[in-house]
């Protein structure tokens, strides 16, 4: 079946099967930043923004997303011109293996869209679903708070 998706502000017309999961459709379309850590909605590595909300794309049928707007981490910034969140992740050491980063960056983005000045507790809540086994979270939380500060000034 045919599916129209707006991925990172570009319209895509995709040929999919009714049972295809969004995570697989995105990866097949070249958005490899969307990672797979469990396929069960429990790790957050496949997090994307679906109409602005952070969701686990392994729990979503692509067919249910007709006309939706999707953002993956590729839309945030580039290596040369990173988004303040991306820059803060590097500067604060919130990236080790980086496998959890695309997902956690997007959860952070969704949070800052809603609440440009979150408390530490709010950051912890918003990132609760994005597991990271490398960093121990301290630097991730610091990075998000630092980025929010920078974005506000």
């Amino acid at each position, binding site marked *: 079946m045919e599916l129209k998706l707006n991925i990172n502000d570009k319209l895509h017309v995709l040929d999919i099967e009714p049972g295809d999961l969004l995570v697989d459709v995105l990866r097949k379309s070249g958005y490899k930043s969307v990672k797979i*850590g469990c396929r*069960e909605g*429990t790790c957050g590595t496949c997090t994307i923004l679906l109409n602005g909300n952070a969701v686990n794309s392994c729990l979503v049928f692509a067919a249910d997303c007709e006309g939706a707007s999707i953002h993956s981490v590729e839309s945030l910034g580039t290596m040369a011109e990173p988004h303040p969140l*991306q820059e803060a992740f590097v500067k604060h*050491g919130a990236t080790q293996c980086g496998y959890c*980063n695309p997902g956690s960056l997007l959860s952070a983005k969704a949070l800052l869209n809603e609440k440009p000045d979150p408390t530490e507790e709010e950051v912890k809540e918003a990132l609760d*679903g994005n*597991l990271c086994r490398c960093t121990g979270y301290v*630097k991730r939380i610091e990075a998000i708070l630092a980025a929010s500060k920078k974005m506000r000034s």
Partner: protein
Amino acid sequence: MSKKFKVVKTSVEKVDGYSLVAGRGVFVDDIDLPGMLQIKMLTSPHAHAVIKSINIKKAEALEGVHTIMTHENVPRIPHTTAGQGFPEPSPYDTYTFRRKVRFVGDRVAAVVAETEEIAEEAMKLIEVEYDVLPAVFDPKDAIKEGAPIIHDEEDCYIPIPVAYEPERNLCAHVDVEAGDFDKAYAESDVQVDREYYSHYAQHCPMEPHICIGYPDENDRLVLRVSTQVPFHSRRITAQCTGIPIRKIRVIKPRIGGGFGTKQEVLLEDVVAFAVMRTGRPVRWALTRKEEFISSRTRHPQYVNIKIGANKDGKINAMEMKVLSNTGAYGSHALTVMSNCGSKVLPLYRCKNIRFWGDTAYTNMPVAGAYRGYGATQAAFAMECVISEVAQKIGMDTVEFRKMNHIKSGEGSPIFEKLGEGKEGVPQTIGSCGLAECIEWGEKEIEWGKKNPPSEPHKRRGKGVAILMQGSSVPEIDMGSAFIKMNEDGSFNLLMGATDLGTGSDTVLSQIAAEVLGTTEKFIIPYSSDTDFTPFDVGAYASSTTYLTGSAVLKTAEKVKEQIFGVAQNMGPFKDCSVDEMYLEDAQVKCKTCDKTISFSDICNFAMYAKDQFQIAACESHITHKSPPPFTAHFVEVEVDTMTGKVDLLKYVAPVDCGTPINPILADGQTQGAVVNGISFALTEEYFFNEKGVMLNPDFNNYKILSTVDMPELKTTLIDTYEETGPFGAKSVSEISINGALPAIANAIYDAVGVRINNGPFTPEKVYMAMKELKK
């Protein structure tokens, strides 16, 4: 001691950082190969059984199925999956496929098909008849007479001369003694004798194991693997498949964490056979469930500690007895067990020490290397017993540690007696910042100050644990590096060292840049591709910074000499001696005249002008010592006496890792390890039914810490300088995972007076222990 550096000891940005946060990092799974087939593995539903018959006809007939591999059609070659140096100190007790299955999750048949769905369909069509055998799940039962024998095949053996008695499920044994333990223990004023148990746990890298294989244009086999040990992966794949090493290339792209579980050659043999049979690219990716059940775990261990001490606080005698459970196969069975002694016993000054270790086979999931590597399990027991001894004597537990811990210039008989599969290497401690770590931690946690609880039915308590680890395996591990210079003054740095998120590409680039008088931006690191990079044992044993770092340093020194030689050959530096030259700001400079030549001019001269040659060098390094990093962990908890729930209020972890080559990355290693340790101590746990089936193979039911669970965590790096390390560095990655179990257990005791001797410290367990105490 502090030295001045330019690039080293600065928190330069991780060289792959922007790529990773931009989603550009290319992991194993991030390539599309036309015509790629998929593997799914049918695994055993029984803990112990012989395959009576296996019928794959119906499954093979399914459209889209390309081939099915079983023990009947794949060569049976004994090997170990442990990615260790050759010959491995682990038994060759594994075959690509086996007639006998030894745990729930053991390989039975691999289906290679067009899609994973088809492969799963086909799996249902495979008919297997099992002769179910009695199984044994606890190592104590496994080594009893009359227990079912798990490895009764004739062709399993261990390739080094050590004890190995599969006929009684004894996979490894070590015993050593220094002085006279029995006598000293008997004569001690105070004696404590306790058994502790460390439970099953999994590494949980966010990226599960994955391997993609394909034939290249010359019909060589290329394997893209999520591995910590690309060279061991190549060697063991060759061994299992009969493909010569020269026809295999192993590539490690970006890796999504390993923590030891990727020091295993778990997928490569099957993928290699599948590529050979089909001539097509083949992918095998483990699911999270398979990662829990069929990959590797921490070795669960019973650790019994006896300590005898005098009333004045002097330790007279220490004994550690370990019974380790390796599960169905003996991966790292010997070395994890001996590491319990070798990384924990030397921490305390004592003349009479005995270590006794056994590792048993059971019909349980297979254990392997896991960050901490035995030290985690042994430190739990040791650090709890040390506190108990101090309390019996009536000393403060921190003062007792201060009085007895090893110091710079001291040795331990254990260093010499206990090695990796052989005797150890004698060593005296060089750098030691343990006293400073303790001091810093005491202040941060306000040791000795009892805080009031937040509610009347809660109790507060504080606990401590001190720790050491090592830095590489001395006289065994080898790392090497190759550096070549480019016309713009940049350098390619090629090394077998394996960055799996640890930051070693960055740290090693910094070391090269420091020697070469340039910045890390002019170093182009490329790691772990067996066709292009020189050999390295890989990322394990806390070795990369210390071991490969030294190889990089030596290589850069060689390149520096060549640069000086070229400079002398060029007009302006004719009369300058090498002793006066130095490298700075990507230029050759001279101390006496003020001439300079840029690196770019140097390289262009070497390539195009006169006596042309490629400025390049390759050097290797082995270590003669394994200098320990040190740390002291302090924790404050609040225990709810009505529910048994333990709240972590504050966790403090200062670490002495010598010179931190990149402080932010070193600190990140510490924090990651601490949080993994806390998670292990408080929530992580395997549940099994009576048939040996693991019941909670997912993150909903196997709980690892998330952001909301975080206590206040304070870490710092204590400055020391290790003379034998590159720019004074020692290791940092493993040590800090070992503190949470004992520090939290000691804090619980301080809060509510119960000693919990097995993890995790769940509310039920703590509550029951408190109830027991009241009786």
